[in-house]
């Protein structure tokens, strides 16, 4: 076929199954076009064919014959839409950005041709409805397109809101899936088809490394490695082996030739069945139990096993008093007593860049390009596991993580094992089905809540017993978070895991927080309702956290809150407003170092961390710029050879790199002693993370993670409109108050808080990981059946930062990535109650559930 590609002629002979995306990324080498869902849902792969935006992942390559194709690279870099995206911070991880940009360019150009003025939010959202942004940066995307259409960027260069924005809007930002090394093979993982079985693996030719290698060549064309430890698989989708070949298609073909013989073992998937005494035991003995995977961040809680139930020890404060009071209140039907069972569905992280690794094993060491949020941790883990002469981990840009990319995943293990065995670089990238099956998820939960409140005397007693449903993994921790909130009244908490033959869970943005809030924050709301109290005033009475108390006071004065309906409405469409609060610990990596070097007249900042879309580069740049306002500053992250930097997890990055960068800037200023930067070529300083005043909450770090003093707070006030006949809930407005002290990068902080709201809306209304109860196969394995919130589901959002109260932290502020999403779903639940009088107990609040609940 012949076509015009980004202005130049091209010829190519595509195969019948080749997609346009395959050809553009592989044969044409234009990797700005991203492939994410592979099903035409997310729009990341959008290209222009004769000026029409189309999804290239479903477009047969042969259909490009005779067309004019434009990708993000062909848009140039100075288009008003790109400028607007750069200045309006219309992105986070950036993986969806090329698709949004190409679509928005067409919308913009047509608008400017036919119309004048600013398009409405609705018009822009309609045009972009075929694009998903998992980070939830929709608000800024809408604003950017509106401003571009209004002509605001016709004649001027943008001021980038974040350092890497220009690279992300032009498609030049390199993600792991874009890395291609000379001689690279493609790996595929062979996975279990059964939920529980003893397996025997036979490779086509066990003795040799290759079936088709040319004896004249030194390196083989293909090969196999075993991934499974032992011979028991415990979930459908569990990695058993990996194969590599010259092309992805050949690798898939080769994978078919690996024989896995199954001796089925009794299995149980559904937690309600798994908890029964007669259910087959998934981890039959102490040794197996000890090796069960954990979804906890760091060490999980200790527990006792009984069958498939692993119970933690009670975390209690005057626990017997709590239970006695609750029993008594239940017996006398006390007005402030509330008990209910809440459930939540598993939530899949669904980062738009899949888990992917390119391993390059050589005699002098291992280079592992991998989509990770834990670069320093992976360096240590890879060194320990394979002990190569040296390890370099590279992740220049990471297309989202949300907690799913904290460990050495199957993609990394397979790529390294294959590369080590075959002596060639190997890429392993998860398909969307693999991504949605076996890269972790927020465990589902079942929470038994009992609460007793009094209008003035505080929370009299609370008990919460939570079972986490994380497949074969343990480590769900939800109830225990209750030790840190709502004063010091008597309380009793217990966390359990009910394991089943399903894929393991993993940490997800604020692990345990959203399901905790879903139960407890609705409990507080319910008690306020029963006592006739204002839910915000009741919280202010109960809650000792002074930062959150400040937020309650501000929220109480909002028109959004003051004008909420007093009683449930009648009629088909009902408006309601709900409040919920969030609590989160403050963590930092006190070992963080930021190095500053003067190179060619510029200040280059380096640290071994990674930017998963949070804007950590910009936090560093801003901190240095405070001391050197006129200097050119470059930030290099994403490579493990730099001085130690933080994992992007536990909301720790900002409070780690920000103070270390300031320290470095201060040291550099001292070294320069008034000289201009240009006269200090080659000068290098190393900034350290100063300690907090009056120490930490826990005096030692665990794997570089230090728990600091003080708790972060957030409050969400959410308005919904419910169509009571179609069961449809639309979130219309959200106010998010966040108390994390001083803000390092206001635009990125607001962006992330808005994204936290969007993800929380997804958790509340749409997202549901569905596992077949008989086979353990994940059914929500594509982006049509796992539903992410879209641009048209985005409410109007107002973010308020309460910046006091963190003076003991150097820099005066901490991270916010988790606290800003924890209470969102609960606020939606409370808003629906306010609108309809229906108390939703089960997440997500699907239309059928809402209709069924309201008819009761």
């Amino acid at each position, binding site marked *: 076929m012949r076509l015009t590609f980004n202005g130049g002629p091209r010829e190519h002979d595509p195969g019948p199954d080749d997609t346009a995306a395959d050809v553009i990324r592989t044969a044409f080498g234009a990797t700005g076009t991203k492939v994410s869902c592979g099903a035409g*849902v997310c729009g990341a792969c959008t290209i222009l064919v004769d000026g029409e935006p189309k999804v290239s992942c479903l477009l047969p390559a042969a259909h490009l014959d005779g067309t004019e194709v434009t990708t993000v690279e062909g848009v140039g870099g100075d288009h008003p839409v790109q400028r607007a995206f750069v200045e309006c911070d219309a992105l986070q991880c950036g993986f969806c950005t090329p698709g949004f940009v190409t679509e928005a360019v067409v919308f913009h150009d047509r608008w400017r041709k036919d119309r004048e003025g600013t398009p409405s939010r609705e018009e822009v959202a309609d045009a972009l409805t075929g694009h998903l942004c998992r980070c939830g940066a929709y608000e800024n995307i809408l604003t950017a397109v509106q401003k571009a259409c209004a002509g605001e960027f016709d004649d001027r260069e943008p001021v980038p809101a974040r350092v890497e924005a220009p690279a992300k809007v032009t498609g030049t930002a390199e993600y792991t899936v874009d890395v291609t090394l000379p001689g690279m093979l493609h790996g595929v993982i062979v996975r279990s088809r059964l939920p529980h079985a003893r397996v025997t693996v036979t490779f086509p030719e066990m003795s040799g490394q290759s079936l088709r290698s040319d004896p004249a060549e030194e390196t083989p064309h293909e090969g196999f490695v075993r991934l499974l430890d032992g011979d028991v698989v415990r979930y459908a989708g569990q990695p058993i082996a990996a194969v590599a070949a010259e092309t992805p298609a050949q690798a898939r073909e080769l994978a078919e030739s690996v024989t896995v013989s199954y001796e089925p073992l009794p299995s149980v998937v559904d937690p309600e069945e798994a908890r029964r005494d007669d259910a087959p035991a998934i981890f039959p003995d102490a040794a197996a139990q000890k090796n069960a995977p954990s979804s906890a961040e760091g060490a999980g809680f200790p527990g006792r096993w009984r069958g498939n139930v692993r119970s933690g020890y009670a975390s209690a404060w005057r626990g017997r008093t709590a239970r006695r009071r609750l029993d008594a209140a239940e017996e006398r039907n006390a007005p402030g007593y509330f008990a209910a069972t809440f459930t939540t569905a598993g939530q899949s992280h669904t980062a738009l860049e899949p888990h992917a690794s390119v391993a390059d094993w050589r005699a002098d060491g291992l280079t592992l390009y991998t989509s990770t949020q834990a670069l320093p941790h992976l360096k240590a883990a890879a060194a320990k596991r394979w002990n190569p002469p040296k390890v370099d981990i590279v992740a220049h840009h990471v297309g989202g993580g949300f907690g799913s990319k904290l460990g050495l995943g199957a993609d990394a293990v397979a790529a390294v094992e294959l590369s080590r065995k075959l002596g060639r670089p190997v890429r392993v990238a998860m398909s969307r089905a693999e991504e949605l099956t076996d890269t972790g998820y927020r465990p589902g939960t079942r929470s038994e809540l009992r609460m007793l409140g009094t209008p003035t005397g505080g929370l009299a007693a609370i008990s919460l017993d939570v079972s986490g449903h994380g497949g074969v993994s343990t480590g769900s921790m939800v109830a225990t978070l209750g030790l840190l909130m709502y004063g010091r009244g008597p309380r009793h908490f217990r966390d359990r895991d009910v394991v089943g033959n399903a894929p393991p869970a993993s940490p997800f943005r604020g692990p345990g927080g959203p399901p905790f809030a879903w139960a407890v924050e609705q409990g507080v709301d319910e008690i306020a309702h029963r006592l006739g109290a204002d839910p915000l005033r009741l919280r202010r009475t109960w809650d000792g956290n002074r930062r959150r108390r400040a937020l309650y006071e501000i929220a109480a004065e909002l028109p959004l809150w003051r004008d909420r309906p007093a009683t449930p409405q009648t009629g088909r469409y009902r408006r309601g407003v709900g409040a919920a609060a969030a609590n989160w610990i403050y963590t930092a990596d006190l070992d963080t170092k930021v190095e500053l070097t003067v190179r060619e007249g510029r200040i280059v900042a380096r640290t071994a961390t990674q930017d998963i879309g949070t804007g950590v580069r910009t936090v560093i740049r801003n901190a240095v710029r405070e001391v050197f306002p006129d200097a050119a500053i470059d930030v290099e992250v994403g490579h493990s050879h730099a001085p130690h930097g933080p994992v992007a997890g536990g909301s720790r990055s900002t409070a780690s790199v920000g103070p270390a960068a300031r320290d470095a800037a201060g040291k550099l200023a001292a070294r320069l002693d008034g000289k201009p930067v240009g006269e200090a070529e080659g000068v290098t300083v190393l900034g350290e993370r100063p300690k907090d005043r009056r120490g930490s909450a826990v005096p030692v770090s665990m794997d570089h993670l230090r728990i600091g003093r003080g708790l972060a707070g957030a409050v969400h006030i959410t308005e919904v409109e419910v169509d009571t*006949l179609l069961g449809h809930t639309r979130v219309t407005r959200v106010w998010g108050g966040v108390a994390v002290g001083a803000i390092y990068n206001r635009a990125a902080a607001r962006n992330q808080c808005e994204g936290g709201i969007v993800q929380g809306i997804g958790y509340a209304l749409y997202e549901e990981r569905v596992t*077949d109860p*008989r086979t353990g196969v994940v059914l929500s394995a594509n982006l049509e059946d796992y539903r992410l919130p*879209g641009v048209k589901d985005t409410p109007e959002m107002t973010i308020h930062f309460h910046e006091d109260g963190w003076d003991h932290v150097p820099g005066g502020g901490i991270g916010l990535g988790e606290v800003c999403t924890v209470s969102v779903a609960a606020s939606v639940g409370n808003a629906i109650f306010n609108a309809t009088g229906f108390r939703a107990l089960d997440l997500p609040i699907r*239309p059928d559930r809402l*209709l069924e609940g309201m008819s009761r």
Partner: protein
Amino acid sequence: MTAEYRAGGTDLMERRASGRSTGPIIDLYDRGLRSIETTEEGGFRIGAMVTVDTLATDPALTAAYPALALTAGALATPQIRRAATLGGVLLQRTRCRYYRNEHYECLKTGGEGCPARGNPGERAVVLDLGPCVAPHPSSVAMALLTYDAVAEIEDRPSKPVAGLYGDGARDHLLDASDLLTAVTLPPPVEGERAGYKRAAGRASAEWPLAEAVAHLTVRDGVVVRAGVAVGGVAAVPLRLPEVEAALTGNAPSEELFARAARLDWTPAFPETAYKIGLTATLIGDVLAQAL
């Protein structure tokens, strides 16, 4: 192995990638079939390769068949509508989450039975034609039913679009070698108005839990012609002649619409019983839009 036709590829390419479709492909890209012509009777003949986006935006078509245009404009996403074709959306394969999952075989993959039947979920059918429990995915087919549209098939007699469907075992009744080349619609009716709506969790870009389309022609205060069809409820797109009959000859009013939209259905599964009320609401809504 029988060859499969490829039109826009928006369904087939996903099934190629997942291994659901493995045989040879006959690409229709170069076959033309993209013309929109007026027929001798004054209707329209729309080529099978005309895109869904064109159905939604072509000025002549939107004026002539507003129910079709509204339906076409609301499905999937703008990018999909620009690539997907009329023929493709009529003959697309089921979106059942079991069918789309490589771990399962069912009667539609060449195997037996229906793994979804034991776990139908809230998205399954209300009306059980058996053996498949997934609703038919074609919104456009639903709209075409209300216009008595006719499908032209190469080297075969034409048949009504309604005749493309008929049981719960197949997504359509054509043989793999049959090529649908065009759809013909009867002459448009002056003064017709239409409504379309879908119920879903999200605001857009989602397969519907249920959907409804209606067109009404009102003369001298009386409904002289009505077309009503629904989707998301059965393994076939479903026209509702009894609803149309209840409307025709009467003065339009909210009460009439509510009466006409009453559905005397027995749900196949408790999980989908809610779809009956949902569908009735949608019918009432689209009739109100069409007034």
